[in-house]
C-alpha cells in the first residue's frame, strides 16, 4: 500500500507524445503591463501546491504546480468541457490562473494521469485534482514559493524558454509500466470503505456582530433583516450556546459556526438580563 502511495505521489511525469509540442507558447506575451502576479494557492492534504485555473473560460479547476511535469496537462474530461479540439492529445487553451494571470494561447495535453486518477479515487488530496501546470507554463516566470505566505509570486521573465522535447520513442513506457497504479487505487478505494466526496457547502449566514472579552461573547449588533434579527436576537445578549456547543470563548464560537451549513436551522441560547432565552434561527445564504 505505502508503495502505491509513493508511486502516485512522486508527481513526476515523463509521458508526453513526442514531437507534438510547438514553440508558440514560449513566444513573449502581447504587451502586458503587469509582470508581477500574486497567485492564491493552497496546500492539499497530500502537500501538493494547488492553484485554480480556468481553461477557455470554463472552471475553476484544481491544478498542481509541478516542475516534475513537462507541460500543462489535464484530464480528458476537463479538456472535453473546454470544447478544444485535440490533435494527438494536444490543444490550444486560454489559461487563466486565479490571481489575475492570463496566458491567451498555451499548448496543453489532455490525458488521464494515473497519479491524479489514483489520488482522486482515494480522495487523498482532500480536493478533486484536474491537472498539472508544468514546464511550458512555469518556465515563463520566476516563481516564489513561501508556505508562510498565502500567495505565490509569479514574475514574468523577459525570455523565451527553450522548447522542450519528450523522452521520445527510446523511453517508450517512460512511466515504467506504472499506469496500472491509478486503476489499482480505483479498485482499492471502495474495498477500504472510501467514497470521496469533493463537494463543499457554504456556512450559514446569521448576522450577528460580536465582541468577546474573557469567557463572555456578547452580541454587539444585529443587522436588520438578517436571520438573527428575524429570530429575535438583541444587542447585549450573551451567547451561552450555539448549535449545541457551549460558548466560553471566541474559539468555541468559531468551532461551533464552522459546522453550520447554509439553510440549517439551529438553536442559539442567550443570557438576556436576568433570564435565559432559546432562539431558533434559520440560517441564510451569504456571509
Amino acid at each position, binding site marked *: *500500500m*505505502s508503495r502505491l*502511495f*509513493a508511486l502516485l*505521489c*512522486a508527481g*513526476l511525469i*515523463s509521458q508526453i507524445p513526442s514531437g507534438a509540442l510547438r514553440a508558440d507558447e514560449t513566444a513573449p506575451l502581447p504587451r502586458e503591463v503587469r509582470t508581477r502576479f500574486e497567485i*492564491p494557492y493552497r496546500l492539499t*492534504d*497530500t*502537500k501538493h*501546491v494547488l492553484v*485554480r485555473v480556468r481553461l477557455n473560460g470554463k472552471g*475553476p479547476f484544481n491544478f*498542481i504546480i509541478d*516542475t516534475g*511535469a*513537462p507541460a500543462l496537462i489535464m484530464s480528458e474530461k476537463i479538456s472535453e468541457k473546454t470544447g478544444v479540439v485535440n490533435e494527438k492529445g494536444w490543444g490550444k487553451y486560454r489559461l487563466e490562473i486565479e490571481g*489575475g494571470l492570463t496566458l491567451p494561447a498555451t499548448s496543453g495535453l489532455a490525458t488521464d494521469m494515473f497519479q491524479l486518477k489514483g489520488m482522486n479515487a*482515494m*480522495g487523498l488530496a482532500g480536493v478533486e485534482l484536474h491537472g498539472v501546470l508544468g*514546464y511550458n507554463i*512555469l*518556465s*515563463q516566470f*520566476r*516563481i*516564489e514559493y*513561501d508556505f*508562510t505566505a*498565502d500567495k505565490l509570486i509569479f514574475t514574468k521573465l523577459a*525570455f523565451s524558454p*527553450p522548447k522542450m*522535447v519528450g*523522452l521520445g520513442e527510446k*523511453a517508450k513506457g517512460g512511466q*515504467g509500466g506504472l499506469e496500472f497504479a491509478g486503476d489499482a487505487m480505483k479498485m482499492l478505494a471502495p474495498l477500504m470503505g*472510501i*467514497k470521496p*466526496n469533493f463537494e*463543499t*457547502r*457554504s*456556512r450559514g*449566514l446569521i*448576522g*450577528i*456582530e*460580536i465582541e468577546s472579552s474573557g469567557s463572555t461573547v456578547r452580541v*454587539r449588533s444585529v*443587522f*436588520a*433583516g*438578517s436571520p438573527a434579527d428575524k429570530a429575535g436576537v438583541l444587542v447585549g445578549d450573551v451567547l451561552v450556546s450555539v448549535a449545541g456547543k457551549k460558548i466560553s470563548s471566541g474559539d468555541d464560537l468559531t468551532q461551533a*459556526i464552522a459546522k453550520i451549513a447554509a439553510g440549517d436551522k439551529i438553536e442559539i441560547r442567550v443570557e438576556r438580563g436576568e433570564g435565559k432565552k432559546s432562539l431558533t434561527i434559520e440560517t*441564510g*445564504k*451569504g*456571509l
Partner: protein
Amino acid sequence: MKSLHIFTLAIALAGVSGASAAEPTPPTVKVPFVLLPTGHFLVAVKLNDKGPYKLIFDTGAPTMLINSRIGKDSGASKGGGGFFGANQSTLKSMEVGSVRAEKVPVVVMDHPTVDAFSKFFKAEHGSIDGIVGFPFFARYRMTVDYQQKELTFTPNGYLPADVTQAMMLAITSAQNDKGKSKIASASALWGFTADKSASDDAAGVALGEILKGSPAEKAGLKSGDRLMTIDGRWTDSLADTHAAASKIDAGRTVPVTVLRDGKELTLQVSPVKGF
C-alpha cells in the same frame, strides 16, 4: 486490514521528522540547476554528507525519494529498498548547494520513472537517482528561475508536516465521514446574501440583500452586483466565496471586485467580528 497496518508502521518511523529552526536574519542562498531538454531540472545533492548525487527537483512531489543504490551509499537505508521494498527513512542531513537541512524524511525506492530518466540521460548527465520534494523545499522561501537556471532559498521557519501521516489522516477521515461534504466558512461577518442557480455557470456570484449597517453596505456593495473576487480569489460559488473569505480575518481591509452595469469596480471591504 493488513496493508493499513503496515502503512501505519511506516508513519511511526517517519514521525520523528522535524525542521531546522529559522535564523534571525536568514541568508538567501543561490543554487544553480541543470535544465534537461524534457523541461525537468536536476540539482546536485549531498545526503548524510555523501555524494553529490543528481536528483530531479519536483515541486509536485510531496515526498523525497531516492533509489536503493544511493540509499545504501549514503547510509539512509540499511539495504532493503527496491521496488518491492519501499521504505521510509530519515536523512540526518541533506545539502542542496550550500543549503543544509537536517532530519529530512525520505522514501527509498527504485521508482520506474526516475529509472527511465536516468537511463535516457546517462550519457550526458550520469546517473539520476531520485527526487527532491516538499519535505526539503517547504522549509524555505524559494524561487525558481528558468532564465537564470537558478533556485534561491531563504529559511522561513515553516515546518512541513509529514505527508504520509497527512494522507493516513485523509484516508481515515474519508472512511469515517463517508461522503459527508465539507463546509467552507468565512472568518468574519460581511453582511450580504448571495446565491447562484445550478444553471448559472458564468464566473462570480450574484449579491442578493446587502444588510443595513454591515461592512458590505459601508463599502458600497449593491444588491445585483456580480461578486467576482475577494482579495484576488475567485468567488464562483457561494462555497467559493466563503473559502475566499476564510482567509480574511475581521478588521482587515481587502479589495473586492464586482461587475455592475457591465463595468468592473474594485471596492475596499473590512469585515467585522461575527457570523
